[in-house]
């Protein structure tokens, strides 16, 4: 009885002590001699990295690399954060988007890559000078973009043929005309304006449209919302008009609208090319790809949003220089860039996709991908601010949502969204 009680106490106490002291700072033996890498949690990326890492290790150019997919069940940011908190993070990680990189940089968890030896040469070699601008935080780069997927609009060619004289819509008026005819029937809509209910869907509707209208101008600058201007107003008025006339719906959630014909056009990224080819090959035969619509002159190469993720090195790493050498090699190697393109269908983040002979064959045999490649140099990633979620939630609740439900005028919605965003950003100083 009393012995039992003592035993119980001792057991609890020792368990606590054991776990407390056997972990934390010195959990694993010093792993100084390999580079640990985390990669995006999907099959396509994994298959690319298998080849890349095997090649590097075989060539013996530097430290051996060992990689695993980010052990996440969906939210890789949370997994990375958890690892940082528990101090079990790797040396290098891919799949980091710019907002998250900024958060981590502000928390001093990332190594500034722009001060690494060989950085300037890498940017030159890979033709990233134009692209890297939107990844700079006060001139320093903490994450180097690995891929850049422009958002473009897919249209059903057969519907365009019947209702739009086969013209791919490029301006708002084009879409109005198409919708006037096509959406006259029940349960049919000209264009899927709103990409979804979540904050992340703003990337593929308002933000993409704004970039197109403003030619890639930032919508957040110096912790202030800058989209309450003439360009933003054009976008807001477009959204408003589409819902006012009933040319688009609030909810497309059932089957895919392009497949069912519920919408004549919808925004998609290049990753969908493979999926649709597999699941809806018939529909794919009828798809043509056009730019994000805007009122800029049709001849211009319309800017758009870029879904883009990058590579980072964590500050706690003991093999920073060696890790950077590995990263430089993977990013700069032309064959690997092509391999990436082939395996994942995503555009490597470089300006010279269409000029470089390495990729010529691929783009000649994949015309749809070719269209995407032409937009890589005008596709901008999300605004570089660590409060991405707040910013986009405000967009959803104050701007896009009320326009969808016709609760505010375009100017009022913009005013509310901008002032709310400013307030929140000021608060989070």
């Amino acid at each position, binding site marked *: 009885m009393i012995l039992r009680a003592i035993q119980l106490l001792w057991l609890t106490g020792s368990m*606590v002590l054991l776990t407390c002291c056997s972990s934390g700072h010195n959990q694993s033996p010093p792993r100084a001699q390999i580079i640990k890498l985390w990669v995006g949690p999907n099959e396509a990326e994994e298959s690319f990295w298998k080849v890349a890492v095997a090649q590097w290790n075989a060539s013996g150019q530097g430290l051996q690399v060992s990689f695993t997919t980010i052990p996440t*069940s969906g939210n890789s940011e949370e997994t990375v954060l958890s690892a940082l908190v*528990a101090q079990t993070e790797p040396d290098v990680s891919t799949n980091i988007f710019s907002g998250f990189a900024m958060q981590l940089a502000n928390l001093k968890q990332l190594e500034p890559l722009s001060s690494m030896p060989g950085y300037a040469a890498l940017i030159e070699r890979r033709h990233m000078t134009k692209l890297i601008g939107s990844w700079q935080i006060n001139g320093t780069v903490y994450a180097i973009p690995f891929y850049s997927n422009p958002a473009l609009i897919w249209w059903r060619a057969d519907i365009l043929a019947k209702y739009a004289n086969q013209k791919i819509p490029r301006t708002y008026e084009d879409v109005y005309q198409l919708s006037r005819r096509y959406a006259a029937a029940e349960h049919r809509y000209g264009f899927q304006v709103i990409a979804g209910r979540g904050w992340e869907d703003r990337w593929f509707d308002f933000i993409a449209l704004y970039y197109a209208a403003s030619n890639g101008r930032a919508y957040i600058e110096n912790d202030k919302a800058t989209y309450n201007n003439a360009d933003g107003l054009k976008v807001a008025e477009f959204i408003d008009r589409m819902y006012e006339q009933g040319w688009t719906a609030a909810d497309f959630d059932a089957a895919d609208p392009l497949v069912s014909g519920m919408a004549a056009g919808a925004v998609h990224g290049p990753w969908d090319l493979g999926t649709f080819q597999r699941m809806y090959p018939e529909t794919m035969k009828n798809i043509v790809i056009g730019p994000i619509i805007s009122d800029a002159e049709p001849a211009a190469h319309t800017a758009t949003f870029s879904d883009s993720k990058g590579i980072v090195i964590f500050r706690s790493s003991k093999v920073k220089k060696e890790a950077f050498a590995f990263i430089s090699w993977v990013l700069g190697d032309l064959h690997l860039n092509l391999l990436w393109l082939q395996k994942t269908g995503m555009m490597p983040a470089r300006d010279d996709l269409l000029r470089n002979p390495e990729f010529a064959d691929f783009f000649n045999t994949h015309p749809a991908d070719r269209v995407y490649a032409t937009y890589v140099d005008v596709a901008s990633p999300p605004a570089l601010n660590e409060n991405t979620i707040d910013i986009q939630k405000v967009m959803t609740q104050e701007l896009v949502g009320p326009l969808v439900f016709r609760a505010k005028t375009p100017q009022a919605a913009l005013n509310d969204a901008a002032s709310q965003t400013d307030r929140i950003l000021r608060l989070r100083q």
Partner: protein
Amino acid sequence: MITTTLRKLAGAKSAGSWLITLAMYGLALSWLYPFVWMVMASLKPTPEIYTTSLFGGHLSLGNYDFLFSSATKLNRPFLGALGISFGVTITVTISVLVTSAFIAYALARIAFPLRERFRDFLLLQMVIPTMMFTLPMFVLIKELGLINSYGALIFPSMMSGWGIYMVSQSFKGMPQDYIDAANLDRARLWHIVLKIMVPLNKSIIAIVALFTFTGTWDNFMWPLIVISDVDKMPLSVLLATFSKHYGVYVGPVMAGAVLQTLPLVLLFIFFRRHFLQGMSLTLK
């Protein structure tokens, strides 16, 4: 004629209450609808789930097969998660039952100094909302180096003040004679608690066991916060995140939901009598 017989069968007291009885049965059965739908949906291929009637369509175990084999390719180890859920839940439940039984006995039948203060402390703990503790608990787990470990799921729940209180209330009501008889036989503490008190208070033990099991098995927010490694997640979190990203695979999601619910339902059915009896105790 028929209605009167039916009425008598239902033991109804009057015509009015016969209607009410019917209504209640109807309601009770309709309350089970989501269960039935869930099970049926888990047995149908995904495209048929919304298009066929409740019991129609091609029934098969295909979704379960998908869950256990193909899902692993998508980085979703369901079988492992099931094992983790079982391991963690059973450990916690046994730990809580044992500790609650012993400490409740002390609280109820042993006079020790500051006993009433201890009881007041338990009540105080039950009044203070537990949601506040989630974040600091995360910090504590981080300091103990237990993030992403099974310990994080087990240790904070190993004892339960609620369990102790409930069991002690039940123990209090027992006549002293049983214990005196045991003491005469110079019985040890563990003998008194485990061989006498527990068997005589089966209902409250069943309640504590059932609620602890359910609470741990279905715990969602805490494992979501503290476990980020796919190989260490319990089924609740794995299922939820699977649904968030692969929500189009409705069939396997429903199969997972059935797995998530099945142990609870089975426990409930096995212990239903104790459970009902215990409910009346807790409501006092």
